[in-house]
């Protein structure tokens, strides 16, 4: 574990240096959050039917989404992509490291650093000025934290999976275009998942993507009873384990290709 923690830590600290990008991101995400909240405000004013979430809850859900955007905006690891294209990936094998663990550690830090730089300020600003509610209880806050860690690990396992696909496709543009709208949409980032029609709910519930955004946010809002909470966490962590195992399997095959074809 130690080498991977060291790599994670070192890369996290390195990435914290990209402050300008974070600042720009905060500005954009606050702006779009504002627009989205106004749209929902309009909807709620103009309709009188029963809503799956209250306006306060939707507002909170949206601001959380703006803060945690990077949990669902996933792309391949750019540095690894360059290494694969140039063939330098072969030289990574001269280190006594498991390549999957190395890429996973990179993906975790690659998410966590920019995420925390954007999420914390947005959280503070939206909490003070923009009607982001507090967590519904102390227990809700704790479960939110646990599922946030799960969301980070799940995001990392998806990033690594996308990165591994580069061993076959090289460019990575395709997988990004294919995967990112799916993940975006089915995580709850575009429209809060409780607002999807009933017939879609069962599919959304099975897919892994809701565990990136919707699951932690619902914990935050306190909308799960005990059974639902256990099921939600189980869903999240089963998917993490599944995707990690799948990634390992595919990577092993990809590396065999590399070992045969060379750098």
């Amino acid at each position, binding site marked *: 574990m130690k*080498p991977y923690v*060291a*790599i994670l830590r070192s890369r996290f600290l*390195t990435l914290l240096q990209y402050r300008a990008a974070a600042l720009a991101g905060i500005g954009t995400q606050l702006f779009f959050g504002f627009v989205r909240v106004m749209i929902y405000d309009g909807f709620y004013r103009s309709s009188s039917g029963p809503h799956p979430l209250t306006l306060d809850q939707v507002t909170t859900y949206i601001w959380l989404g703006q803060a945690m955007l990077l949990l669902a905006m996933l792309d391949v690891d750019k540095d690894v992509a360059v290494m694969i294209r140039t063939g330098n990936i072969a*030289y990574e094998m*001269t280190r006594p490291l*498991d390549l999957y663990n190395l890429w996973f550690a990179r993906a975790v830090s690659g998410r966590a650093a920019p995420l925390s730089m954007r999420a914390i300020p947005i959280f503070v600003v939206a909490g003070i000025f923009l009607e982001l509610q507090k967590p519904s209880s102390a227990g809700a806050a704790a479960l939110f934290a646990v599922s946030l860690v799960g969301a980070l690990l799940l995001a990392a396992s998806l990033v690594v999976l996308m990165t591994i696909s580069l061993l076959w496709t090289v460019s990575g543009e395709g997988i990004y275009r294919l995967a990112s709208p799916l993940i975006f949409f089915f995580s709850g980032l575009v429209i809060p998942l409780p607002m999807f029609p009933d017939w879609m709910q069962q599919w959304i519930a099975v897919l892994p993507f809701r565990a990136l955004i919707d699951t932690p946010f619902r914990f935050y809002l306190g909308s799960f009873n005990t059974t639902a909470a256990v099921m939600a966490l189980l869903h999240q962590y089963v998917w993490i384990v599944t995707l990690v195992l799948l990634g390992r399997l595919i990577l092993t095959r990809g590396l065999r290709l590399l*070992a045969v074809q*060379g750098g």
Partner: protein
Amino acid sequence: MPQIVVENLIKTFRIAARAPGLWGSLTGLLKRDFREVRALDHVSFSISRGELVGYIGPNGAGKSTTVKILSGILVPDSGRVSVIGRTPWVDRIDYVRRIGTVFGQRTQLWWDLPVIESFDLLRDIYAISPDKYRASRDELIEVLELRELLDITVRQLSLGQRMRCDLAAALLHGPELLFLDEPTIGLDAESKLAVRELIRKLNKQRGVTVILTTHDMDDIEALCRRVLVISDGRILSDGTLQDLRASVTRERWLTVDLAEGAPIATVADPDAQLIRQEGRRFCLAFDPQQTSVPELIARIARKYPVHDLFVENPPIESIVAQIYAQRAAPAAHGITASGDSKT
């Protein structure tokens, strides 16, 4: 018991071939043609602990492929490799912990990190104990004169500085074996000397076995007692530099400087051949077994107003160039082929 044993190593690469032009691109969509390139063809050699071996050959001869197999990156099609009793591509992680590699074309450090932080990270990656790490790091900083570089991020280092840091990075964990793939490529004269000096020291003092691939024959001449020559995936020659020389030619070179003010004529002798003239300096090639050196010198000194003269071996470059040239027509000079059974 040799430390490295390589037997009948074969490695073939498949290269996708595509006919040129638009038509070629279109047919390439439907049917890919692959061409097979044999990078290693029955390569065998063995190396004992503490040897410093030069591994040379023209571009594309199979040098890097061999080094990549030895360092656990590539898996050969067939053949046996045993290094420190292990097969590199099996148990790769355990194996690479005990070797060091430097690839001149590329750094193993982290671009964004200061040198010292890269070293600290390597300590964690290789799980080096704190005491051992401190001793090893301080020694390398001392020997490679890295003190002023430690706080600089790797991207800001010059090539020579980076190479010194890369060498240190490859040695922090105290490997028993060092694979160097063109470690002096692109370096200025001073850095080259520093790198050579370090390699020599490591080999002498720590007894580290070194395999060095290079195009720089000065590296070979300065460092290696033994030289392996590979061409087209086959080992052409394996032996000391002197053997290598003797296998190609017995030729010696006599360089003659004519005295100032003397009329510049040509310098000629029946037993020697003029190969070069630069102003008053003439260089003659001769076979010491046909004509005795003192007699040749005496004859020339009698005939011409000689200011200075000296006899030397042809530079290793020209020897190697001749070996490479002979690969089309081997057997001409009876090269000491070893382990290479041509059928």
